[in-house]
């Protein structure tokens, strides 16, 4: 087990290095930080040259990368080109907001998906299953911005127009410490995320349950007279949940990254917006800082998932 973990850790370091190189190249090629200043009447050619030099953009690309890596290895993510603030500070200001939104959405999504997935599987091809399947496909194929804006137009704008109690658009200013306010402001963005995410999970659980329900040991369990509830939850679900562990394990790190579109639409001050706003401007210290944190989390959670697997599934041994 320990030698396995050591081996994985070494692999992880190389994986992360490769990821940072790729991310650096992609970020650096997708937008030039100097493009911001290109048409500014306030800057002369000399001003532009001085700024390029100061941002280190005149260095060859490998040098720019190595400079960034050197800082990162010392635990420094550097300063943003534009706000000049430490990237770590900018991330720490946004991360809690993102976690509140994403963890809430993930918990509701998984719970709801379990209920829908199991119901679908047990009542395969029934009306209930057909409705759930149809809704899943609609949710799965709808673009998130459409759902997010649609919910806002109905439950904020139209409800207000109809004189009903309405939900905030998210663009208002509210007290983050007030739990009632927090709840009110979470309803729409969390609903939008849940609609999109549940569909996928529910389909996984349905398929996985169907596969297990058809196996011999489930028939044996039924044959020995267990109640259908016991068969379902004690025998079938425990095995059917195994692939779910992998999916959730892989999804958790992405919760840190936030929800780009949902955060944009509901003006939620989270990581997704931070990433998008600075990526557009080619601010690679910020973009790479965020990507490094997410990819580190992915690598760590993959290892954790593997370890958790050995507990959930005794057939698997690490070695």
């Amino acid at each position, binding site marked *: 087990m320990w030698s396995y973990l050591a081996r994985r850790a070494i692999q992880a370091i190389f994986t992360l290095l490769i990821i940072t190189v790729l991310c650096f190249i992609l970020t650096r090629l997708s*937008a*030039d930080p100097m493009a911001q200043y290109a*048409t*500014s009447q306030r800057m002369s050619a000399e001003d532009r040259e001085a700024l390029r030099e100061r941002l280190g*953009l005149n260095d060859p690309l490998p040098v720019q990368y190595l400079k960034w890596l050197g800082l990162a290895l010392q635990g420094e993510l550097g300063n943003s080109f534009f706000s000049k603030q430490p990237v770590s500070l900018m991330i720490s200001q946004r991360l809690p907001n993102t976690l509140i939104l994403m963890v809430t959405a993930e918990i509701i999504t998984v719970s709801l998906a379990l209920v829908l997935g199991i119901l679908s599987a047990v009542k395969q091809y029934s009306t209930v299953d057909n409705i759930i399947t149809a809704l899943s496909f609609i949710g799965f194929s709808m673009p998130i911005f459409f759902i997010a804006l649609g919910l806002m137009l109905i439950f904020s704008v139209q409800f*207000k127009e109809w004189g009903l109690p309405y939900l905030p*658009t998210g*663009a208002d200013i509210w007290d983050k410490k007030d739990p009632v306010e927090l709840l009110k402001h979470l309803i729409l963005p969390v609903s939008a995320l849940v609609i999109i995410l549940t569909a996928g999970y529910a389909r996984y659980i349905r398929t996985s349950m169907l596969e297990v329900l058809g196996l011999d040991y489930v028939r044996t369990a039924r044959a020995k007279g267990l109640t259908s509830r016991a068969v379902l939850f004690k025998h079938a679900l425990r095995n059917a949940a195994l692939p779910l562990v992998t999916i959730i394990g892989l999804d958790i790190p992405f919760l840190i990254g936030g929800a780009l579109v949902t955060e944009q639409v509901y003006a939620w001050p989270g990581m997704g917006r931070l990433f998008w706003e600075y990526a557009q401007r080619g601010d690679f210290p910020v973009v790479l800082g965020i990507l490094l944190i997410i990819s580190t989390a992915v690598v760590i959670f993959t290892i954790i998932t593997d370890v958790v697997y050995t507990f959930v599934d005794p057939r698997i041994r690490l070695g």
Partner: protein
Amino acid sequence: MKRNLSVLLSLLVLASIVLAACAPAATEAPATEAPSATEAPVATEAPAACQPAGTEPIAFPDGGKTVTGAWDQEPDSIVPYFTQMSYAIWITQLTLAGLGEWDDQGNFVPELAVEVPTADNGGVSADGLTITWKLKDCLFWSDGEPLTSADVVFTWEAIMDPGNAPTSRTGYDKIASIETPDDTTVVITFSELYPPWQVLFTQGPNNAGAILPKHMLEGQTGLESNDFIHQPTVGSGPWVITEWIPGDYMTLLPNPNFHGGRPVLDQVQVRFVPDPATAQAALQTGDVDWFPNFSEAEISTIGALEPDVHLIVVPGADFEHYFFNLGTTTGVDGRGASDVDGFCPFKDVRVRKALTLGINREAIVETLLEGKTTVPSSQWPNSSWTNSSLTPDAYDPDAAGALLDEAGYALGSDGIRAGDCNGENVKLSFNFETTTSQIRIDIATIVQSDLAKIGVEFKPIHTPAGTFFGSYADGGVMPTGKYDMAGYTTGFYPDPYTDNYKCESVPSAANPSGTNWYLNCDPALSDLMEEVNASADPAVRKEKLDEAQKYIFDNYYVIMMYARANVYGHTDRFVPGPFGFFSNLNWNSEVWDVK
């Protein structure tokens, strides 16, 4: 007796200890003491009028008047010498003051100064090299410290200090010295003629020369990452920022010492809302009171929200223009050689004119832009610098076709014209480069079909702005000249000078920062633009600029598509003051009110 004395002494020691312990508490709350100071007998020593009204922002009273703006971007820092974002200019207009500013009519007016320096009032010397500003009496920062000519000198020194890294020193580097004969007089001497001096130390649409507080920043370097530059805690504008939650919102409270008096409102908040669709919904629910940055394509959507939401469209000095790659690798008379040769047929003015006549610009303005803006005749639209004798050419596809025939481009069997250009048979088929914004995609599609009608194949390519405007070294489309025809928005204001027509600004490997992206070296035009900056007299400059505008117009060097408009939406309860393109909404926030 001796014992009494020792008792007395020890009492004195005790008392002094107690008093010393109390002292810091007294300095912590100067706000409450300051106003009473004006009533104290000390007032006889200094003129009573010259006392600050307070030392802290005025707290928000119960039931006070407040408005919330929604902005689609967040300023990356506030003091605009260190950032180029318009959002920083807007916040600066709310929190800091300059010597002058532009009003709702586009006039240059004093802000901290008593009047605008002119030759008539002795503010501008005969040689144009010395500008004298006179500050208003009794100016104070929001913390109660006096605001004097020393702050202006400090601001200049901070910009020029090699220990600081402002994004631009343009203009400030032309100042030889600043003298301050007294607290309210600022005498600026330039080392060479600098006609755009009005953009220095002043707040305008493209410049934000706020005066910085010497008492807060003196002796510090590395100001670009200084906390105060990121978020000033002391100001001279109508408001002081008291709270800024990154990515979320900003709260501003009245500056007790604002030179224009106490603002009508008790609080202004700015919420950062990246999606205009959300801002629109929030205006409808009243979650926010205004949004300053709708696109021209949203004019009808916002207009349909009356009477709850009001639409304001302000025609601007920015313009969307299409232009030709006129690069020559050989240069002209040894000037302005570029890395690439432009598309050969564009060298013929008849072809350039035909393409201008062949695009139905009026129809684009009427349909896509709801008729809320205009097709301008020159690159100085909606400003006092416009050459009003010019009229844009009307859509005339027949005349366009005739011109192309005359230039030798005959219609081929595939419907595309071709003809001889410098000994080679060239098809009138070329790439058009622009960015990915929706309105540019829509307009390019219309242009494509218009030009197809006159036998010209126009092939749009949409590149993200980060690459389109990228640097020469990064292979940016504009500076490297990798286009046949291209289009984007720019504007030359508040000062009209631009070196985008100078031969010496043509970008190339030897001159990667050049801004003449038309790659157009026309020595006559280049020299004419130089002359615009050769005089300090605005009348002489206008005459030269009129000539330059006519020259560009007659040579069909650019196709002026439309003057850009600023599109605002605001709730019925919010009552902004009068404003124009040069001032923008934020210039007179002290008069804002609510219904």
